[in-house]
């Protein structure tokens, strides 16, 4: 059996859902162990065990929370040299990219990033990655050992396997922290009441909303539906809404039950981040907009008129 490691991601003590998604895939690929570094790592190990990790390497050292990339890369490097895994899975997320990049450079093995799937192939592994902003999918054979693959969030569905993990406490190899970037403050920007990654309904707006002054229309609809608000890159780049709301290739991948796109054209780089949604509703005034060719329900019309009416209709239906 192949030896598959999952680099779990903790954010201030909380296991991020990408870790469970990776474990679900890892179980198909071999014997699974996980690495949990930072505050809450021991508690995390129990959760990772439920999702299929047989063993979890843990260290609760605060350096993992406070410094970017360096301490985790050094620590995992030492583990790899001892444990010789065949494959290490990371999330293609901000925090894991920092670690995986440094690790791959240290080990001199390279990596495959931005993957949407990983499979066993010919005694090794293959990964599929989007090409041309998602229009095509390339299958890459990963040639080095360990194979390091970074997977886009929401590529796999998390599921519990019902096991327990043994915990192995490890000595952190933090390296020279004076040569590492330090996180000195964390700022939460208001607006995201429901998290995009966890929402079952997402109301998302693009340049067709005409201006930041109209985004409250989407927030009101989202409030009525219990939904999160997302956005296209065009409006994030224009500074209408914070980057945390961006959906797409260079933003978040989401997979809600319903994705409502208002005034979004449906560029490939946007749809690659939301086409896994169960149902898509699109409102666009241009009958030729690409988003209407992939929506389950497409409405040709003015989002500024339709969205407030929909908010009222939802409220009436829910009896609020």
């Amino acid at each position, binding site marked *: 059996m192949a030896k598959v490691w999952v680099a779990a991601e903790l954010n201030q003590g909380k296991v991020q859902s990408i870790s469970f998604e990776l474990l679900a895939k890892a179980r198909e690929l071999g014997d699974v162990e996980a690495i949990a570094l930072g505050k809450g790592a021991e508690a995390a190990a129990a959760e990772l065990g439920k999702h299929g990790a047989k063993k979890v390497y843990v260290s609760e050292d605060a350096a993992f929370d406070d410094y*970017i990339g360096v301490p985790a*890369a050094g620590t995992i490097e030492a583990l790899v040299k001892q444990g010789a895994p065949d494959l290490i899975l990371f999330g293609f997320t*901000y925090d894991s*990219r*920092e670690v*995986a*990049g*440094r690790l*791959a*450079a240290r080990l*001199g093995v*390279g*990596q*495959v*990033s*931005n993957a949407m799937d990983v499979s066993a192939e010919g005694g090794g592994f293959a990964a599929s990655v*989007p090409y041309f*902003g*998602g*229009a*095509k*999918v390339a*299958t*890459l*054979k990963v*040639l*080095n050992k360990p194979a390091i693959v970074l997977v886009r969030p929401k590529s796999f569905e998390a599921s519990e396997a019902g096991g327990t993990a043994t915990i192995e406490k490890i000595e952190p190899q933090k390296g020279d922290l*004076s*040569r*590492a*970037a330090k*996180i000195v403050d*964390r*700022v*939460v920007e208001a607006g995201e009441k429901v*998290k995009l*990654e966890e929402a*079952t309904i997402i109301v998302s707006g693009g340049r067709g909303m005409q201006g930041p002054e109209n985004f409250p229309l989407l927030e009101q609809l989202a409030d009525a539906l219990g939904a999160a608000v997302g956005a296209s890159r065009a409006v994030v780049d224009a500074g209408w809404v*914070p980057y*945390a709301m961006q959906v797409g*290739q*260079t933003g978040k991948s989401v997979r809600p039950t*319903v994705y409502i796109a208002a005034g979004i054209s449906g560029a490939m780089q946007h749809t690659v981040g939301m*086409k896994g949604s169960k*149902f898509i509703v699109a*409102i666009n005034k241009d*009958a030729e907009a690409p988003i*209407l060719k*992939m929506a*389950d*329900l*497409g*409405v*040709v019309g003015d989002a500024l008129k*339709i969205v407030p*009416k*929909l908010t009222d*209709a*939802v409220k009436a239906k*829910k009896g609020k």
Partner: protein
Amino acid sequence: MKIVVTVKQIPDPNAPQKLTSDNRLDRGGEAVLDPGDEYGVEAGLKLKEAHGGEVVLVSMGPAKAADAIRKGLSMGADRAIHVSDDSLAGADALLTAQILAAAIKPENPDLVICGTESTDGSTGMVPPMLAELLGMPQATFAKQVEVKGDKVSVHRQTNEGYEVVEAQAPALVTVTAGVGEPRYASLKGIMAARSKEVKKVELSALGIEKGSPAESVEGVADAETRKAGEVIEDDGNAAERILAFLVQVKAV
């Protein structure tokens, strides 16, 4: 302050894209400076304006990448280093990072600025690898960059908002669109760029041993597409139709 900005020429993202016979991105057509790197150049120039010093572009790419380098020079960068070798076509992220690191090291910069990921490859791995190979801290995904004494401080975008991150120079920073619209090259800038130094560096001069590539392309297929469902014209009742749909799929 000496600032190195890494820049890459990519196939024009607005032109139709093609594959070569060995399933690599066809780089033969129209090419531009990666829009993501324009933010890097912009951030570098802003810091130079605030603190003085020099902005040096470093690029790895075919001979024709000189055009993208000129673009950065016409925006205002002072000079450039261009590593070009035919054998580098298809270089993976690690090899790219190794080459950039070897080209940057002798410059001893205070700051290295990169885009967060290239627009064509999108692996996002060159910056952390480069930071590792240069032994620099990485302050990444910055929507704001400030230099205070020998420290660089950035606002790093996160899923919830941002983090304030500090690093001791020399450091590597990656920047997002948040740093501000890249300036246009003025006519004066374009004229001045013609006489700016672009140092050509041969691969052999960098003394790099090429490792085995991380991956091989096995095949490329069209992505799965979703089928169009029902498309209706708003006749004043579209909101009701959408609500009915949401009820039908049990979202309301």
